[in-house]
Every structure is written in C-alpha cells, then in structure tokens.
C-alpha cells in the first residue's frame, strides 16, 4: 500500500504567476487568465520530484501536496 498524493492550489493565495505550469506541464495547465488547473488525479511516482520542485518554487506558497493513505 503506497500513499496517494494530489496537488492542491490555495485559490486565495494563488496569484497566477504560472511557474508551476512551467515546471510541471504534465499535471498543471493554465486557464484563460493564467491560473493553474490541476489535470488528472494522483501525482505519479515518476513526477513526485517535479511536483515538490513546483511547490518549493511557488512564490505565493499556494501549492501543496495532499497525501492520503491507500
């Protein structure tokens, strides 16, 4: 049993800088106004490093990983 991780955006903190979509285009698209849209569900194992990089580099600290057991 491995933990499942999903990306979550805090919509109040997010300013639409768009860095996350540059780092992780596989999972994050930008809407018409530059705000991130998380695509798909769980973050696959192979993209966890990039996901953590996107979280670390978000200038507004608006991105996080939500892990659930299972």
């Amino acid at each position: 049993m491995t933990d499942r991780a999903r990306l979550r955006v805090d919509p109040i903190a997010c300013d639409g800088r768009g860095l996350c979509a540059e780092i992780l285009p596989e999972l994050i698209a930008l809407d018409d106004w530059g705000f991130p849209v998380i695509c798909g569900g769980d973050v696959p194992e192979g993209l966890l490093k990039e996901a953590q990089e996107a979280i670390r580099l978000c200038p507004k600290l608006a991105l996080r990983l939500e892990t659930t057991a299972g």
Partner: protein
Amino acid sequence: MKRELHTDAPGGWSPPGERASGPAGLPWLLPARYGGGPATLGDHLARHGPLPRCAKDPRHRDALITEVARSGLTGRGGASFPTARKLIAVASGPRRPIVIANGTEGEPASAKDKVLLAREPHLVLDGAVLAAEMVGAGHAVLVVHHAVREIVDDAAAERRRTRLDRIGLRVMTAADRFVAGEASAVVRWVERGDPRPTRTPPRLSERGLGGRPTLVQNVETLAHLALIARHGAAWFRSAGTPDEPGSMLVTLIGAVRRPGVYEIGIGTGVDHVLGLAGGPASPLVALLLGGYFGTWVHWPAAAALPLSAAGLASLEAGPGAGLVAALPADACGLAETARVARYLADQSAGQCGPCVFGLDAVAGQLEALARGRGGDLGRLRHSLSLADGRGACRHPDGAVRMVRSALTVFGGEIDRHAAGWCRGTGEVGVLPVPPRAPR
C-alpha cells in the same frame, strides 16, 4: 469524542416524548397576522411559554441534542446541513465554543431572515441562547442585517434588563454584501471587520472565532431550535415530510399578487406555495428556486412538484434558502440572468482569480447573448467550466449553477435573440439587484 447520552433527565430540560403538544397549524415562526411592531418579551412568552434551559446539567444538554437529532432539523441558510451534527461537532471541541447567529441575509431577493428578526426577535434570541447552552458556550454573537439592527438591540436589552439569560449576547451589524453571509466570512467579519470568506480547512467547528470551536447557524434555524426545545421532535415532524421535516420560511417575489415572506411545511406543492401569495399575477414562464445560487425551472413543469429537496431533485433544483421568484411571460429570462450574473461577479470577494475573471467573463457573455449581438454560447460554457469549483468558497459554484440552469430553461431563446426577438416587453428587473457601485 463520543458523548454519552442520557435521556432520563430530572428537572431542567427533558424530552417531551410522543405526547408532546404544540401549536397545530402553521405558521409556527411567524405571527398569524401581520401588523404591529416586533413581539415584545411579554408577547413572546405569552405565545410560546418559557424557554426550557439546559446549561446546568450536561445530561440535559445531551438529551436536548438527541431531541434535535430526532427532529431532523437542518440548516435553513441554504445548505441544509443537519443541525444536531453541527452542535455535536462544536460541543466536542477542545476549547470553550462560541455561537454566531447568522442574520446577514446578503441576498437582495431574500427577506425571510429580516422579517423573522423584525417580527419575532425573541424566538431567534431564544435559539441563540439555547444553542450556546447546548454546546457549552458562554456567549452568542448575533450578526444581523442593518435593517433590523435596532429591533434586535432592543430585544437583547429587554432580556438583559430582566436577567433572562446566563449567556452573554452581543449584537453586530452584518456587512452589506452578498458573500458576507458565508459562514467563514461571518467569522472573519466578527473577528477582523473583513467580510471575505477564508479557506478551509480548518473547519469552523474546530477552529473559528478567536481559534475557538464556532457554531455558525442561520437565524431561522435557531428559531426552529427554540420551538423544538419547547414542543419536541414529534411535534416538529408534524409538518414537512419524513425525510425533510418541519416548516420553512419562503420569500415570494416577482409576478405574484402578494409578494412577501410565508411559512410552509417542507414538501408543500409549488403551486400551493404561490397560492399563499395570491397566485400568479400574470402568466408565468419560469421560476427561480432557492436563491441567486439556485435553479431556474420551467413554470408549468414545476407547479405540481413538492417544494423539497426530494421533490425538486428531478429538475436539479432544491428549496435552498427559500426564495421563489416568479418570472412573468413578458420578462426576458436571459436578461434577468445576465443582471444577476453581473451582480454576482461584482460581489466576488476578489480573492480567487478564477472567481474574479471567470464570473466577469460569464456575465459579459450572458449580456451579449441577451442583447443578441456578439454572444457565443460555446465561450460561455467554457467560462462556466473554468469558474466552477475553483474558489475558496462556493460563490463561483453557486453562480455557475444558476447560469447553467438558465441555459437549460431559456437556451431555446438564444438563437431567437440573435434574430432580433425577445419576449421581454414588460418590466425589466423582476429579480432585484442593488445599483452598481462605481469601480
């Protein structure tokens, strides 16, 4: 934490049981006849009797919470969350809780909370005091629309003079904007004078006002609570349906003969509800049910259905906060929806990008479709999908829901608008929106 429940409480509050009696016919909350001012404490006690208390003994509290659970009472602010579950969550918190009675009613079309507070302020204060006793709070804050502030102040002062309650009561004027009634926005308003929603988690029942477990309850819900404590769950269940018991206040506006606030048993037929307001004042084309976050439905299709969540589910509608707006056949549903959509876009708290930009785009496209020039239904649907579910609170979701239902009901008129036709020959502005503030 699981609470042990006792029902054999001697003295204080005890369950009235199945023999319980109370007023038989509706209205329960509102006075039978209009006229005169707000009920004084004397009027109130003569009509309803003294409020049972439960602060002294935890067993009385538990028994009363059990009774509320048996009554099936749900929140009357629009979300219909089971009241007993909220009471238990707040009472189980690690710190001393606080109660907020929410009489913000920021929705311009709705009047039921203002009318209730203006007519029966003591019933709401009873409920606030009782809720505080039930969760072990020492204080209750009443956040009320400015139109009824003095009435509630006077009622609270009357109770203080007679030393009626052990619970401290504080009255505050609500912020006058649409999102100010959202529970986390009410807490932030009381705490910091800023009426904007906050993100969750944490839940308010865990960490709300000043970090305390906070019970935010609509004022109508509290009034029901005050009557359930007096007459019991079996009595409450004598109105409504088995799954959605009790009565609810509804605000009827638009093309009805006597617009106003009425009290119905949940599940009353929609045509009968309109009948309370004298029936349609002219031929109707549609109803907006629930509120500005509600659902447009075709008029003849909705007439025979019960006004309840189960009864309206087939139309993807629900009773919401009790608004029933009747759109006459000579008013344009697209134009009405565009006005409300613009209002809701303006009322965004401005915190979340997809809400700010998404609702503005939705309103702009609807305005173009209603004008019959430059509108694009595909662009509108795209903007709706970008706004839906992407805010910290449910403001964008509610607006999207209402606009999508408008496309279902009035969608057939979009092409005809492009060809220069519009049914709107009569009154514009059936749904009230305040004048736009200069931006």
